[in-house]
């Protein structure tokens, strides 16, 4: 068998695929952050908590209402999105004129409160969520054993990422959105309801986090910390991709998943630091991020 640095190539393929799956979550979450930052200028630190909420919505729907995974996939993002819009309308709205830092502090505080409440109520070990029947089982790809559910995660997140990119960069609605961030007063003068558009955009970004939460529920435990563990990495992804760049966040999300996957093979001890090392290097060479433009 051929080997690369002592690792059989076949095993390496498996690891790359695993990296891609984790990258899917990074991409989905950083995409939401990028949309929110790009269009609202808010550094949304509640994103991790909103991702956790998505997973909990799925858990409640299953255990309290008897609605399975597919229903959750539709309902949980809407519910998280609605919750997000409530936050935007009641709190974030007041902060648009202020420095980024205030939005960051508010959302960070909210995240701590939400996580604390859930931890009090549900503990730290988390709750089990089964893999949906249709996607249970696995197939043998020759070089690895791929659970069907993980294959679905890659597929679904690619579709959502590309769809979002298309809407924002290639449609009329997207052009309004982008215009509204450049010059809200002018866009409003054309008769477009900018505040409502902003609320909906925030709701959409949060909905993406909720969606990622539902997709994560069967793989990880549904636990109050699930978002806190992930959010810091996702922020690094956004910074590396370039704050606010849609394409940047998608590509970087998947790419960093791969890099992290490879690190887990060659030097697993560094697997939770490698992304930050890359972030430091990127910031030194290209402070605006790989795909970002200096504002």
């Amino acid at each position, binding site marked *: 068998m051929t080997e690369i640095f002592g690792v*059989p190539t076949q*095993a390496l393929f*498996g*690891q790359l695929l*695993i*990296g891609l*799956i*984790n990258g899917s979550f990074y991409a989905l979450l950083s995409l939401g952050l990028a949309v929110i930052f790009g269009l609202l200028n808010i550094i949304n630190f509640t994103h991790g908590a909103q991702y956790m909420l998505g997973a909990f919505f799925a858990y409640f729907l299953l255990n309290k209402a008897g609605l399975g995974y597919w229903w959750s996939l539709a309902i949980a993002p809407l519910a998280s999105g609605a919750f997000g819009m409530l936050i935007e309308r009641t709190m974030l709205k007041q902060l648009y004129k202020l420095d980024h830092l205030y939005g960051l502090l508010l959302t960070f505080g909210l995240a701590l409160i939400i996580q604390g409440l859930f*931890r*009090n*109520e*549900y*503990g*730290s*070990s*988390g*709750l*089990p969520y089964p*893999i949906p029947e249709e996607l249970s089982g*696995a197939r043998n790809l020759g070089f*690895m*054993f791929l*659970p069907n*559910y*993980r294959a679905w995660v890659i597929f679904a997140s690619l579709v959502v990422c590309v769809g979002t990119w298309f809407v924002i960069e290639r449609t009329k609605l997207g052009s309004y959105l982008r215009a509204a961030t450049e010059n809200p007063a002018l866009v409003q003068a054309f008769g477009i309801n900018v505040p409502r558009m902003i609320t909906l955009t925030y709701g959409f970004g949060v909905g993406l986090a909720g969606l990622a939460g539902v997709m994560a529920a069967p*793989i*990880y*435990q549904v*636990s109050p*910390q*699930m978002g806190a*563990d*992930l959010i810091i990495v996702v922020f690094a992804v956004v910074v590396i991709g370039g704050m606010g760049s849609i394409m940047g966040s998608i590509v970087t999300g998947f790419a960093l998943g791969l890099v992290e*996957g490879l690190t*887990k*093979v060659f030097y*697993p*001890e560094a*697997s*939770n630091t490698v992304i930050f090392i890359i972030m430091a290097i990127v910031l030194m060479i290209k402070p605006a991020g790989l795909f970002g433009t200096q504002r």
Partner: protein
Amino acid sequence: MLQKRSALLAVSLAFAAGAAQAQISDGVIKIGVLNDMSGLYADLTGPGSVVAARLAVEDFGAAKKGMKVEIVSADHQNKPDVGSAIARTWYDTDKVDVIVDVPTSSVALAVSQITKDKGKAFLVSGAATSDLTGKACSPNTIHWTYDTWMLANGTGNAIVKTGGDTWFFITADYAFGHALERDTEAVVLKTGGKVLGKVRHPLSTQDFSSFLLQAQASKAKIIGLANAGGDTINSIKQAAEFGIVKAGQNLAGMLVFLPDIHALGLQTAQGLIFTETFYWDLNDNTRAFTKRFSAQAPRNLYPSMIHAGVYSAVIHYLKAIEAIKSDDGTKVIAQMKKMPTDDPLFGKGSIRADGRKLHPAYLVEVKKPSESKGPWDYYKVRNTLPADQAFRPVAEGDCPLVK
């Protein structure tokens, strides 16, 4: 001020009937429960340990005996620096006399050193590393509930004997994981098994699939999980997803607790074999304790062996203070080692010179969903290791105290 107080103390010594209090520094025995209140070990330790300590003070009857006992608690976030800072503040300014629990071996090792420097007392229930009674043993520390050697010996032996002779380790990359891996590897090698590989993951990892894939590629019969809490839960859950057990490899959770099984559900956890020193359904005493514990614990959790250990350790600590009428850390620990232990949860036992508390250990198997009669009915006890066989012989530990 100090002089005034000692004068007062002298007066009370001479006249007061409750002389027991006289030697207690500032009249109060202050117990500090230091553990993970919010992270991946919070359900195994956390607020539950505070409940256990409270029940111990109650059952000891401190109030009736005229002893004033106070309990404080803090979250060390599994970080040695945070834990050390809290321990120092507690000892130096908050007049804490004893620190109990402290999961996360790296934190416990740091607190043990500080306790020794300050001449206080440290009762470990949560941490696992056998170094606490080995090369890092201390005259001020007692290691109560379990340790990595005992887990390795109990679980490792049983598995190798039933044919699991090739191993691959998935290890948490810090003091605890390293100790557990080291002790288990020793057992595997000693009983004629082989270790085919190992991989070390950062503490509190979400995705284990990469490590599981490496374990799968190693073709080892047994995948040893040298991690704990949320890390073990995720490893087991994802191993099921990747069909690892179905494909013929077996998981050995080297350190699994009752709340972990509760979180995983029997469907995923069934058939796991591991070692514990306490299970709520052992006898009438443990069941009675569990009922009271659960009523006060967050979300009515049942006690883990760590919680039980906190209870047992605090009772014995108070008994020792009662006997010598002093709360001087070094003296109390010495007295605790002298007296035999006896409490409703662990029964009769003893504490060795190196600080190792001795009691039986139980090899348990997780029931199938069909075998479980109700909530929390999770274990079948397969074997009981008597106290003198469950823990590392004192001569093998390299503890400087017993040389």
